[in-house]
């Protein structure tokens, strides 16, 4: 189960690398805290990876570096053969809150990234594609509804559309469904899997839930705190497509237990 970052297993082993991190580290100058130390891995096209770890393990720092929101102190981040030196169009991001803007209708919220980058006219043109995306996530008919009238799950579906509208090469998901109730959360996770496989998207999920990480991922990156670093990469060999039923299988249980063991060990390292 223990794999080195360079040799991912499964049917994605031959897929081209999309995202490459080598020896990435981050030290905050203000208090000399090492938030992240020597993280290296490769995400391949169409793969789904999760990062899990207790708070203070540098998950969010890692995600912000990958998104180009903050610069790393050391190391290199390369996305589609070009180093990441700031936010980019081919990076899609999603947060715990839907972060839809209440003064825009659902469809206006979705085309906002296009409007910001390419202007109003391009935003108008993108509405056609936005309608297609809304249909994929099951929000057909809610185009002209204001976000106030959407439920939490619907709002997150809309924010998935907003992330996908720019056709990003990688999806960075920062605990996207942790604000939802457990039933909606499971459903949204299956939905996410379906969307990712139809779009052949490369996804990177930050989560607190071991179950969520295991059911969705090809690889789970287990991180340890103080200093934040990669403890182990666990390959999940459950068959695809994954279903919620798999959560009751012994194989699933074993992998959850294994990761929980790693996290417990990480706490007193």
């Amino acid at each position, binding site marked *: 189960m223990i794999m080195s970052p360079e040799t991912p297993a499964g049917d994605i082993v031959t897929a081209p690398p999309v995202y490459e991190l080598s020896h990435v580290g981050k030290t905050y100058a203000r208090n000399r805290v090492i938030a992240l130390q020597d993280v290296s891995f490769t995400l391949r096209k169409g793969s789904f990876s999760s990062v899990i770890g207790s708070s203070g393990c540098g998950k969010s720092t890692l995600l912000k570096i990958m998104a180009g*929101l903050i610069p790393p102190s050391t190391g290199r981040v390369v996305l589609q053969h070009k180093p990441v030196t700031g*936010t980019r169009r081919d990076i899609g991001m999603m947060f715990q809150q839907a972060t839809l803007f209440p003064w825009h209708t659902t469809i206006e919220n979705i085309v906002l990234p296009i409007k*910001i980058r390419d202007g109003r006219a391009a935003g108008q043109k993108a509405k056609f594609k936005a309608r297609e995306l809304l249909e994929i996530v099951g929000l057909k008919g809610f185009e002209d509804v204001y976000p106030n009238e959407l439920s939490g799950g619907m709002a997150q579906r809309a924010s998935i559309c907003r992330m996908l509208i720019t056709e990003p090469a990688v999806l960075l998901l920062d605990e996207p469904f942790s604000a939802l109730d457990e039933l909606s959360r499971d459903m949204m996770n299956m939905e996410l899997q379906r969307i990712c496989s139809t779009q052949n998207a490369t996804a990177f999920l930050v989560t607190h839930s071991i179950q969520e990480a295991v059911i969705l991922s090809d690889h789970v990156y287990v991180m340890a705190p103080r200093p934040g670093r990669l403890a182990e990469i666990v390959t999940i060999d459950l068959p695809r497509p994954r279903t919620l039923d798999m959560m009751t299988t012994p194989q699933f249980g074993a992998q959850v237990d294994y990761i929980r063991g790693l996290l417990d060990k990480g706490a007193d390292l």
Partner: protein
Amino acid sequence: MTDATAQSAPSTEPETIWTEKVSFIDSVPRGISMLFVFAVFVASWQLSTSLGLVSPIILPSPAETLSDLIFVGKNLISGGYMLGALWITVKEVIFGFALAIFIGLSLGVLVGETAFGERAIMPYLVAIDTMPKVAFAPLFVAWLGFGIESKVALAAFIATFPIVVGTAAGLHAADENSRMLFKTMGATRLQTLFSMKLPKGLPQIFTGLKIGAVGVMAGAITGEFLGGGAGFGELIRVAASQLNTPRVFSLILYLSLLGLSLYALVSYTQRRVVFWHTERVGGDNA
């Protein structure tokens, strides 16, 4: 009713219908409550004047005040000299408010958006804000004369600060995720300001505008008290100096209508512009 219940479910006990007890004071409708307070107010007013508790020069009777209210109202409607005075005050208020909005929003954006503004300009604004602004009235008269300009300046001067504070607070209201989202979209600073931060801050900005709308009235009238002119404030000053207390009362009432309409205008604009934000303070949806 009982028959139907008995037929459909004969074995169960009869339905218990209970209603939540609301105490009497909470159950009085709004109109009646307001009317009651008004009646108590007028009755005690009438009582204190007819019992001779206060001199009629200090406090006229409600009847006297009402007849003067009608007199002033007739003069206003027929386009008399009072309407001319009111128009001058209205102009001062409108120009003063427009000026305050322009300066307030500009300074608010400078202070709320740039580190320079926050470090270099905010301390001075706070220092000026703590001064009693009415005390600047003689200076404005000296600089701008006895005309409408000095009143506009004082009105704008008083109303600007709440708008600056509201705008700066509004710009700080944007949450971390929204900022990150705009950053990942590659938005420029101006795009972030106009497409996200300003709309997000509109509730706070409108709070500033409402406080400013109250201040602008106070500024215009104070300016007229201290700097002469031909506005409504001057009418009040003259009436007071002639011990014509009923006139002072009715002029103040009409003036309050002006202030009320300005406030209502801002409130109405807020509801139209910030349609997504339901306000719970201020009794708007009581």
